[in-house]
């Protein structure tokens, strides 16, 4: 009997990506929850601090970024946990494909389902919080890169806590400190644009962080999965 | 080199900064002592429980 031919790297990546997207589509009710959370919590800000546009304008960049951070964090817990519960994760870890590539596929799917919609919704929240026109472009670009980093680091945290029974609070404790640089550069890109300054610096730094996370996080998450799966 | 303070009261007052200086040093002392005592107590507790296990096995 000849050994069955293994699918190539790209095919393995594509298959897992398609599967995760299909799963997300079938459970689209769950997938939109972080988005609803994102919008609802932002609507609480004016209720808490008052509706003066000047105040909201000052708060807008930070608030939108923090809500985006929390929205992706809520979803990071589900990244590996469901596959762990139904046993699919064990197969991924044992599969001949390199685990970091499979992690990357799952992160890509997660970002397409959570990070990208949050980014696309953010201008709406910017409008609600009286963000000046100059802030929208850096908000969009920054969140595109930033939510990618959130998903990548969230994957590391999700992998570490995968067997611990959906402990999303523990996951938050682990990854929130790691989110600090993204939050700083992301919000200051918007703030500087609103103040009429250049935005190249912080966005370039954000891009560098995203590149570094893309290079390191899949390997870290793969190592974390191998350890974390044993609970 | 000579002492900067004349008498205990002046030393404790720290030129008006006493509460700040002593709360920093006091909390540091508590934490440092706890850091030393805690592993020693843990070690003693483990050895004690091992001795209890040995005694129980010896009585059988």
């Amino acid at each position, binding site marked *: 009997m000849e050994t069955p031919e293994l699918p190539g790297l790209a095919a393995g990546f594509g298959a897992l990506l398609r599967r995760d997207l299909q799963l997300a589509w079938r459970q689209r009710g769950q997938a939109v929850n972080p988005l609803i959370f994102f919008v609802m919590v932002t609507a609480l800000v004016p209720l808490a601090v008052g509706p003066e546009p000047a105040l909201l304008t000052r708060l807008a960049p930070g608030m939108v970024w923090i809500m985006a951070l929390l929205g992706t964090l809520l979803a990071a817990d589900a990244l590996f946990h469901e596959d762990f519960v139904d046993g699919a994760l064990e197969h991924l870890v044992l599969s001949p494909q390199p685990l970091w590539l499979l992690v990357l596929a799952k992160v890509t799917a997660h970002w397409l389902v959570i990070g990208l919609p949050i980014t696309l919704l953010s201008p709406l929240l910017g409008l609600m919080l009286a963000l000046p026109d100059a802030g929208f472009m850096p908000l969009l670009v920054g969140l595109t890169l930033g939510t990618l980093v959130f998903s990548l680091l969230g994957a*590391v945290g999700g992998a*570490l*806590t995968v*067997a*611990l029974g959906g*402990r999303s609070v*523990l996951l938050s*404790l*682990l990854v*929130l*400190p*790691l989110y*600090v*640089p993204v939050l*700083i*550069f992301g919000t200051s890109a918007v703030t500087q644009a609103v103040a009429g300054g250049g935005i190249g610096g912080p966005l370039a*730094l954000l891009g560098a*962080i995203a590149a*570094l996370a893309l290079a*390191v*996080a899949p390997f*870290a998450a793969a*190592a*974390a999965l191998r*350890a*974390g*799966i*044993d*609970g | *080199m*000579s*002492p*900067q*303070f004349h008498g205990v009261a002046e*030393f404790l007052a*720290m*030129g*008006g*900064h006493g509460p*700040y*200086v002593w*709360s*920093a*040093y006091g*909390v*540091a002392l508590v934490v440092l002592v706890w*850091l*030393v005592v805690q*592993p*020693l107590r*843990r*070690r003693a507790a*483990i*050895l*004690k*429980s*091992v*001795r209890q*296990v*040995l005694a129980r096995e010896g009585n059988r």
Partner: protein
Amino acid sequence: MARKWQWFHRLGSPPGFYRASGYWLPWLAVAAALLLGVGLVWGLVYAPPDARQGNSFRIIYIHVPVSFLALAGYYVMAAAGAVHLIWRMKLADMVMTAAAPLGAALTFLALWSGAVWGKPTWGTYWVWDARITSMLVLLFLYLGMVALRLGFSNREAAGRACAVLALVGTVNIPIIYKSVDWWYSLHQPATIRLTAAPSMHPDMFKPLLVMIVGFYVFYALVLILNTRAEILARERRTGWVRDLAAGRNQR
């Protein structure tokens, strides 16, 4: 096998380390007590008061050493984690386990001493200064580390997971520090300048040096004490720990 590696293997095994460290402990304890005692009296009584801050500057003899160790402790923890991941060395995992709460305690002390030093110096316990903020993030990193280990019931898996987290944190710490520095330079309030005194008088600096060395020795002492307790906890069912407990020809 080359003989020169024998000492390493003996030291790398938990019982070997336990035995060897038993001989180091008295020396470390005496050295730490002497250095900290001398530094304390020198710093509190003999060092001249600061021209601007008066006697409140004496908090520096706590604050600076623990701040150094708080950061250094994370690298100790991460290095132990790397050794554990690469060479599957059990002792390294025990050192890592011991280093996390120790680092958290020192980071807390750094924040605490900084806060009570800040009140008489800048009139407030807390400012969002770059170094203070970085220290706060470091405390969160340590707490996450402790929480992750407590979350696991499987000790072997906990060790590897914590090692991965420590290494990810190590990559991140320089980025966090740089980003917080940069953030602070954007928002620096004009009224509060936290630049350190341009140059310290040697009479103030010498006791600080003694305290820094003393705290490093103290750190080594506590790390070893914690590692020894961790070794006993994990090997409590082995023969050598039973011999030790029963007092049979062991130290």
